[in-house]
């Protein structure tokens, strides 16, 4: 009975949404004329390269135009780690009774991971260093690095992350992000303003502070995702 009711409800919602999206043509041009700056997207496309020196418009939006969003996003991740740690908090005596969940991993897995791990981490670092030139950036690169750590965590029993070092990286990365923002205020401009020389578009050192912020974000995301995985995996009670 409940099922029928819910399916009818879902059909109504689906119809309602489909009706709305019929009026939004797929692939239609909603930006308008790029030069006229009617929409923000048009402004971004026509001005990013000359005003920020960043080739990847999405990076410029994420880090600079909407930098406060990214700061908030990093904070959400930080708070999720903090919240997770408080929800699954174990007192000292409980800590000794738990160990990491450990699925048996085969020799093939272990050997493969050993080869892949450095390559994955390197790829992740490459992605976040080149965030202003190619697709990708701090979040994507950080996630790639964290997948490398996930592989290590599930295939090696003895592999442990250094909790103390992670706290240091996490805090310092967060502080330097906010610090770059405050630097803008101290130098008489606005928060998070890109105050340095923007350089030549499409070279590695360009875009002023934008790549630096994205690298900091990359470190923070990598450490936080690894931390979350570590906490979630460490749940098995010792028999």
């Amino acid at each position: 009975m409940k099922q029928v009711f819910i399916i009818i409800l879902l059909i109504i919602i689906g119809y309602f949404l489909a009706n709305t999206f019929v009026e939004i043509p797929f692939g239609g041009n909603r930006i308008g004329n790029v030069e006229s700056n009617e929409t923000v997207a048009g402004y971004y496309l026509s001005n990013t390269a000359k005003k920020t020196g960043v080739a990847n418009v999405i990076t410029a939006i994420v880090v600079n135009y909407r930098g406060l969003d990214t700061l908030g996003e990093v904070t959400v991740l930080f708070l999720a780690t903090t919240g997770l740690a408080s929800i699954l908090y174990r007192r000292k005596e409980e800590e000794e009774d738990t160990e990491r969940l450990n699925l048996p991993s085969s020799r093939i897995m272990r050997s493969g991971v050993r080869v892949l791990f450095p390559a994955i981490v390197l790829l992740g670092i490459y992605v976040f260093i080149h965030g202003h030139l190619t697709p990708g950036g701090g979040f994507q690169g950080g996630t790639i690095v964290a997948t490398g750590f996930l592989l290590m965590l599930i295939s090696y029993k003895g592999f442990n992350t250094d909790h103390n070092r992670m706290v240091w990286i996490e805090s310092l990365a967060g502080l330097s992000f906010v610090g770059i923002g405050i630097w803008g205020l101290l130098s008489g401009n606005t928060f998070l303003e890109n105050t340095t020389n923007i350089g030549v578009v499409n070279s590695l050192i360009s875009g002023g502070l934008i790549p630096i912020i994205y690298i900091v974000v990359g470190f923070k995301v990598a450490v936080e995702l690894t931390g979350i995985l570590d906490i979630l995996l460490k749940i098995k009670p010792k028999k």
Partner: protein
Amino acid sequence: MVISPIHYIFVPLVAAFAIPLLSKLNKELPRIIPGIVLFYNIIISFVLMQEVNEVGYISEVIAGWRAPIGINLIITPFSGFLVSLISVLGFLIWLYGFRFKKVIDDGELRSYNILQMMMITGAIGIIITGDIFNLFVFLEIVAITAVSLTSFYRGRDGAEAGFKYLLIGGFASAMILLAILILYTQVGTLNMAEIAERMHTVPTGIKSTILILFIVGFGIEAELFPLNGWAPDAYSQAPGPTSTAFAGIVVKAGVYGLIRIIFTLFDIEGAYDFLIIAGLITMIIAEAAALKQTNLKRMLAYSSIGQMGLALIAFGIGTKEAVFAAMFLLLNHAIIKSLLFMTGSILMYNSKEKTISSLHGIAKRLPFISILFAIGAFAIVGLPPFSGFWSKLYILSAAADKEMIFLIVTILAVSVIEIIYYFRVVSKLYFAEGTTNVEVYKPKINAKISMLILGIAIFVIGFYPDLVTGYLHNAADILLDKASYIQYVLNTDSTIQ
């Protein structure tokens, strides 16, 4: 570095990121730093309120991009009033919660303090941001911290309440995200002032779809019926200071979001009637539910929902007088309900079931706390010398101006229900025979100071309502003046790049 709205955001962030490191130096630092930060918030509010009184609006751009391009923070008299209220309450809640529970391990202590501080920051962010997607990000900060704090204690059913909250909250954020998406395809911008300016170009059908999605999303934070199922559980399972913050701070942010959407973004006439109807249903059902609660915190939670319903009714009437009354109600509710939650948590401190019956005759053993609870109870039902009387009176007179007789009758009838259940508790406190042998918890001096401040505030506003009415009238005028808001945000020439 002059004080500007961004200080509300980055100072707590610096503190939050630094606390894990600083706690290695000294175990007391994670406890003390949030207090300093929250006190600094009061200073910011004080400076900005003086400024906003002179110029009307304060706008600040982030990363040097003018309003529609970048994100801007904006303080109007209305949002400035709410932010100041939240800052002061946030500090008092910190003062009250300082050494509230015996949290033994520093790991727990650290997370608790970071989460509590960031929840307040998130609520402030919701109010001061001028960008719809940025508002969503701050809403998520509030949601994540609120869920983590709800399930903070392991002895209770915190995880269950937290999961419920998270599920409903996750659904709400999905709806808001969908609304932002559809809105973006129609107007091509995310700045609230520019959206408001272009709203008339959007076809009516799509406009109402967006509005419904927004109302569903923000209604959950604003505890609108039937989206408020999470609230009583979360209030009753969370630690005392946190449930105080829910009632005083988080709900205010949710109501603000709803009001901003309906008053500034949309120009649909029917939305006001919707507010009245939704508020009415919420109020009646919540107050009726409060009547049959046996758990004190659940009762207070339902009463809080009912009061928010009343505030939405007043906003929905839509005249200047009514909006002013609604703001006055928000102010009173923040002060009084915070006091009730603070005193209630102490009265219930050692009771296992947290039921009202465990309060029998506790007034003899905790006279100071009990008298404060009684003052709060009298004030919230709207008895004359207390501050709650004025806000209710103004709402009724605003309804009378528009000749909404049915509304007046309902509000009065609901007030009678309120009187019944609050007086039942107060009479249990004072006149019931002492049967419980639960050891009472004696509050520390810091908690007493913070409750005393709120108690005095009730009397001061009750005897001299003129202290705030002038300012609130001004704030109401500016909230209703949408054109000048748009004009100001989009044409601030000091920030052009």
